[in-house]
């Protein structure tokens, strides 16, 4: 049986109290919400926090009116009446139904970056003499790289970036609100701009976007994304007034594809426009050989997935393709 290392457990009742504990304990403390990301990592000794600060008892993180509390589970998000398409499709494809009952929105946004050289037991990592991300000094994915290239594997972040959503971070020195894309840094180790004493408390999603999310993974459940394409569009009739395209699992952070977003503005989604935009989107997908499936293939199908997303927003009936790829109706 894999077991957790020893830890001290704290259960603050408010965000302020939690931030105080974080400030007091420094890097020895870590936040835990659903536990679906941190606890496996602790069992494999990626993280061995001295203090676990549980967010479960903080009622204010569970707000579901207007802004979404970071403590809502993904299943709870899916049960809400009014959530944008991209977020719904992203949340519905995270891991498995059980893990969606446990994992939270905040947890998915702060998900540790992943890499096949990193998401392994301590003993396995010992066998490769560890890696840049944890306990070692070589990146085995790109041995010349000075930077860790572990891949951002959150599904909800690209969806929220496309939706132009913002997150609220609350720390000892007060509260700040930033666009979701600014939460991330393109560094597999230091991948969040969250300050050590900050807690991601809520997500604000503006109205008015038509959006969708397409996820590439091998199986109908369990698997992390190998590519996530999120597109949000404001239409005026059938003309694109504004577009936001975001990619997930294509770098150490999820990011906005500005060129494609710009290109789409003022255009009708004809087959030619979709092909051109898809090429622009795919051009930004630069996967590394550190996930499931063949690297070149993942690169090659990026434009197909971008095309699926754009066609779905154009109003094409994509249900049959969805079913073949996702393996269930999203």
């Amino acid at each position, binding site marked *: *049986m894999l*077991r957790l290392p020893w830890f001290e457990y704290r259960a603050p009742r408010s965000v302020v109290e939690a931030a105080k504990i974080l400030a007091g304990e420094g890097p020895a403390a870590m936040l835990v919400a659903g536990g679906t990301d941190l606890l496996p990592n602790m069992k494999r000794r990626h993280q061995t926090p001295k203090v676990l600060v549980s967010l479960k008892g903080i009622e204010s993180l569970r707000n579901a009116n207007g802004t979404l509390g970071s403590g809502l589970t993904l299943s709870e998000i899916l049960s809400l009446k009014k959530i944008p398409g991209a977020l719904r499709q992203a949340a519905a494809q995270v891991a498995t139904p059980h893990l969606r009952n446990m994992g939270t929105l905040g947890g998915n946004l702060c998900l540790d970056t992943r890499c096949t050289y990193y998401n392994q*037991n301590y*003993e396995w990592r010992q066998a*490769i003499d560890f890696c840049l991300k944890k306990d070692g000094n*070589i990146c085995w994915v790109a041995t010349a790289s000075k930077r860790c290239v572990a891949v951002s594997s959150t599904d909800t972040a690209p969806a929220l970036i496309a939706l132009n959503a913002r997150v609220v971070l609350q720390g000892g020195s007060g509260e700040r609100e930033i666009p979701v894309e600014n939460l991330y840094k393109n560094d597999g180790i230091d991948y969040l701009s969250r300050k050590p004493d900050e807690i991601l408390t809520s997500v604000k999603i503006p109205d008015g976007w038509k959006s969708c999310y397409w996820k590439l993974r091998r199986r109908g459940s369990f698997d992390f994304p190998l590519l996530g394409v999120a597109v949000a569009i404001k239409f005026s009739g059938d003309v694109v007034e504004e577009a936001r395209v975001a990619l997930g699992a294509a770098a150490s952070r999820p990011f906005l594809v500005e060129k494609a977003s710009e290109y789409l503005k003022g255009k009708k989604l004809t087959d030619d426009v979709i092909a051109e935009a898809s090429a622009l989107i795919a051009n930004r997908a630069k996967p590394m050989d550190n996930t499931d499936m063949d690297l070149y293939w993942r690169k090659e*199908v990026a434009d*197909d997935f971008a095309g699926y997303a754009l066609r779905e927003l154009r109003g094409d009936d994509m249900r049959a393709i969805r079913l*073949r790829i996702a*393996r269930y109706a999203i």
Partner: protein
Amino acid sequence: MSKKRFDVVGKPRRRVDGRAKATGHLKFADDLSAPRMLHCKLLRSPHPHALVESIDTAKAEKLPGVHLVLTRKDFPVPFGIMPVSLDEHPLTDHARHVGDPVAAVIAFDEQIAVEALNLIQVTYKKLKTISDPEEALASPEPRIHDYGEQGNIHRNQSYEFGDVDEALANADHVFEDLFFYQGNTHLPMEQQATLAQVEGDGKLLVTSSTQNPHYLHRQLARVLQMNAAKIRVIATPNGGGFGGKCDPANHEMVVAKAAVMLGRPVKICLTREEVFYQHRGRHPVLMKMRTGVTKAGKLTGMHLQTLLDGGGYGSHGPASTFYTGVLTPVTYDLPRFKFEACRTFTNKPACGPKRGHGTPQPRFGQEVQLDKIAEKLKMDPAELRLGMVNKPDSLTANWLKIGTIGLAECINEVVARSNWKTRYRQQPHGRGLGLACSTYMCGAGLPIYWNKLPHSGVQILLDRSGQVTVYCGATELGQGSDDVLATIVAEVLGIETGMIRCVTGDTGTTPVDLGSYSSRVTIMMGNAAMQAAERVRDQLATATGEQLEVIPSGLLFSNGKVFHAESGKSVDFLEAIQFAEQKFGTLGALGSYSPPKPPGKYKGSGVGPSPAYSFSACVVEVEVDTNTGWIHVPKIWIAHDIGRTLNPVLARGQVIGGVYMGLSEALMEEQAFRRLPPKLSSALVHRMPSMLEYKSLTALDMPDVDVALIEDPDPNCPFGAKEVGQGPLLPVMPALANAIFDAVGVRIDEIPVTPDKVLRALDLKSKGLTPRVGPDHFPSVPYPEPVYVATPAEGGDGKESKKHAAAAVV
């Protein structure tokens, strides 16, 4: 006895162990605990190939809560499943792969044991890493083992049944193909666990999730240098085995030794990562197939060469090596057959038997090649196969005796059900159907160690309470062996299966059965059970006949009664028992089974013979996206020649489960390894030893499966029932690859078939190149001179022929 219609056989029923499984009552090995039980963890090598120069356990021993630390010096005697490969020490000083155990800690709890492992200081001398068979062939030194054929070749063999060069020269076409089948593992849901303790009578009790308690029993006696009569092995119900729990394992030896030394119960449960290191799964096999065919679509001969990646230990390897060829001639008339096979050692966890043991790999190649042959000859692949199906009661070129064969019926059934004739080659681009067939043994004709003893024994005890208890050493893995045992006894005695108590898999109380492997249990245990049940039934009949004043042979055992149709007299089963107990004393009977003597007499003829062979045919439907190569499987049709269905619920479950595992292998499962850049590191690690990254199908990835059971009772089998646990897996992989060809016209000549390979092949096709992805060369293997055996058709006597004897090297 009077003949009757079946009461139990063929009727859908709740399996005898169904209730315990659905309520959580059933105890698997890790569910057990004992007072004062200690816990064991193993320290495993981080190096793929290294010698342990020194090992310092002093600090670990001093850690509070630690009771014992064991190392190689505590285990002077090696073990192994096969007498020709006794090459494992429970703890080693020569690590052959990452994860090879070098030390063990026994402590108060697992947490302390893990802490203590970190305090053991090991100095390793690293040796050159040997990653794959080609590297093994090219690097005779350093040797991974100091035995075997030469260098890092473990087994190397060559057989020729009839003159194959001549057969190929006389063919209208000769097809030459290379195929590769990637290794994969069993991934049982249950991680192996073992509890060892010294019982009140001073004897050692080892309770373990093992498929083969008998072989574990023998190896424990060997390693511990104890009298086997003082060791009892209980196989707990296995949470899935699929071949992965056949080998006696390091951890079983270690906790047994610790329990003896400490006098306290010691338990170990492997982590999931450790299960990947225990492995013993499907060998990666590279194959070269040269097959001669006539214009009319008849085979003239085949030359098959295989190269196996054995990993770090022998395991079942000598048998696996044979199995990459010996069943190839069983499905279709193949007049001449040359088979060369070589197994190499490499620095990876040892390969061994997984569902289909060694045969899925050549079956994949053979069935894909037949699809290519049909294409070339412009024949329907189903018709091609129907034209060459082997005859019943015939001998193959390599001297295997085929009894009943329902293969043609299987083909006809799936062809009809899938509307093959109106759909194959006639669907829009991107949609396709593929057909393939297969065969499997109903138990290996020879045991793993040489002996002339029975392969299975069953004991039945009856008493005046009406209780019927059946004892057998066979092991329940989920395949339903307890239900088979109960079914056969219940049918003979005319009672319900629910009236029977099965006691199985306990070397301390049950007669020897060799174990749950090679699809042998239904046939071998079943025949032994039949014999025992008929013996007690005859006692009951004699006594009842006397009481009713009728001739015993006119009595019928049915529906819990013993009755005499002619006179209309009857008694309850319970009364019959009491009459018999009164007449004969305490009631019971023994039955045993030994398979028929195989017709082949040449050295090596022992692998492949079986009392009967099952046959399957399968059609897979695919939809392929030509832009991405994405593969969708909406439906699979399968027909299985089962001889006779004992419990249709379980039989269908075995077929669907086999199809599932076959499809999962065909599409995604890979026991693949990562060699780090040799300039920077000697590491060779399993790419993904986890449930998440070792991909297997989920409920959402599983297509609909239409199952047909073809019944042609085989006289060698109990009530005619053949195996169903392994056969139905085998045709799925080639049927999928053939369906891809029908859909988009590309050949994927390796397993798994993944979207990237399909897309690569489509790309080649669009460039006008050969639309194929697969291996591109077969290395030079120093196969020996073949053992030449004349075929039955040529009037051979089953022995090595004098003509070639002088040149033969075995």
